[in-house]
């Protein structure tokens, strides 16, 4: 068996060190040893986006990244999104718009939407639908998710300060 590697990465603002085999994906390490079970395993082939987390602020499928590749990376997961005792505007908007039923796709959606809105704060509906194409939802029919992202974008525009995530 290949030797285990020591990997150091910043996860949700905290420096973490973990041991992994080269064959383990980032998703396996997040959900296993790091106990961050927000990111979900859906298709395991890059279609569904349920495992979306951010690396250097960009959304990636953590099932398609080897954990060893993440050495030195800055990783953000759903667990680090809510500031203190509140919720992120995206989380609020998903709740208010009932943009979920079973919830499996939700952490991936919210992280992908966060990366998307950070880059494109004032998107059109078409841009939202196009950019969220890497996330699948089998419950909602997508309209509620699109509305939630629109609402979060509007709220971020109103209160930009509240969206600044506290850095630990």
């Amino acid at each position, binding site marked *: *068996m*290949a*030797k285990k*590697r020591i990997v150091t990465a910043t996860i949700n603002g905290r420096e973490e060190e973990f041991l992994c*085999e*080269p*064959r*383990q*994906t980032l998703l396996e390490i997040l959900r296993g040893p790091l106990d961050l079970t927000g990111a979900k395993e859906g298709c*395991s*082939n*890059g*279609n569904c*986006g349920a495992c*979306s987390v951010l*690396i250097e602020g*960009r*959304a*990636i*499928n953590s099932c*398609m*990244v*080897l954990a*060893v*590749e993440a050495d030195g990376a800055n990783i953000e997961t759903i667990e680090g999104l809510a500031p203190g005792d509140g919720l992120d505007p995206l989380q609020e908007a998903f709740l208010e718009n009932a943009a979920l039923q079973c919830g499996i796709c939700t952490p991936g959606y919210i992280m*992908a939407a966060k*990366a*998307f809105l950070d880059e494109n704060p004032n998107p059109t509906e078409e841009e939202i*639908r*196009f*950019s*969220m*194409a*890497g*996330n699948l939802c089998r419950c909602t029919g997508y309209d509620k998710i699109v509305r939630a992202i629109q609402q979060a974008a509007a709220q971020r525009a109103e209160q930009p300060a509240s969206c600044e995530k506290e850095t630990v």
Partner: protein
Amino acid sequence: MRDFEYEAPTSLADAVGLLAASNGTARPLAGGTDLIDHVRTGRVSADLIVDLKKIPELMVLEVNADGLRLGAAVPCYRIYEHAGILKDYSAISDSSNIIGGMQIQNRASVGGNLANAGAAADSTPALIALSATVVITGPSGTREIPVDEFCTGPGQNVLEAGEVIVELRFPPRPAHSGSHYRRFIPRNEMDIAVVGVGASVVLDESGENFESVRIGLGAVAAKPFYAQEASEILAGQPVNDETIKKAGAAARAAISPITDMRGTEEFRNHVTGVLTERVIKKTVERARG
């Protein structure tokens, strides 16, 4: 996933050394969006994975008077966010922007898309249209080949053991030129091309006549290819519906599509004509600026 070793060398020489010295199957890794899936499902074997993303030559992205240099491991998002590529090498922007979704584009590279040699690869027709040269380095040195000669069949390419694609080089674009890539898919996004067409045109000063045209076709043969007759038929011709229709017909004559779950042979034949015409028209529009 099956067990394998992992190395992330910081020099090209080290990467080639590792790949060439491996006793088993060594696989180069860029974005991993094909490789990790293929290793997981057992479609390819790997005893050693060599991550190429720490090698500076493979991460080059530069547009200057000599043309475009595109490192083989540069992810798609860096390509479509690059103003110089959007302006002068639009077909590559077009491709990079529709390969997978955002999560895939943040990892997948055009070099990897080419190396994977899929018949329906979205970036390859664009590379063909823009006359890319593939720079390959391996144990016996560096060689350069035209991109049209890189793929040899479905999943097959000219790379020898220990060789990697280092970068893609593109000549500077002349005045009055434009390029475009478009595909047909049944969904709006996140799908595999049923037909993909990349084209580049150079117009004369008046903008009314074709000087030269290059058309690359994908998903309609065993590998993406340069549609020579459809391209050459337009040189020196006026830009109008009639000449463009002729190119569409020539493109249809050049393909050898299959019938599969994405489309029948007949459908692909029809769409090749329609899409070729539309892509040329869009390319002309861009060339006229």
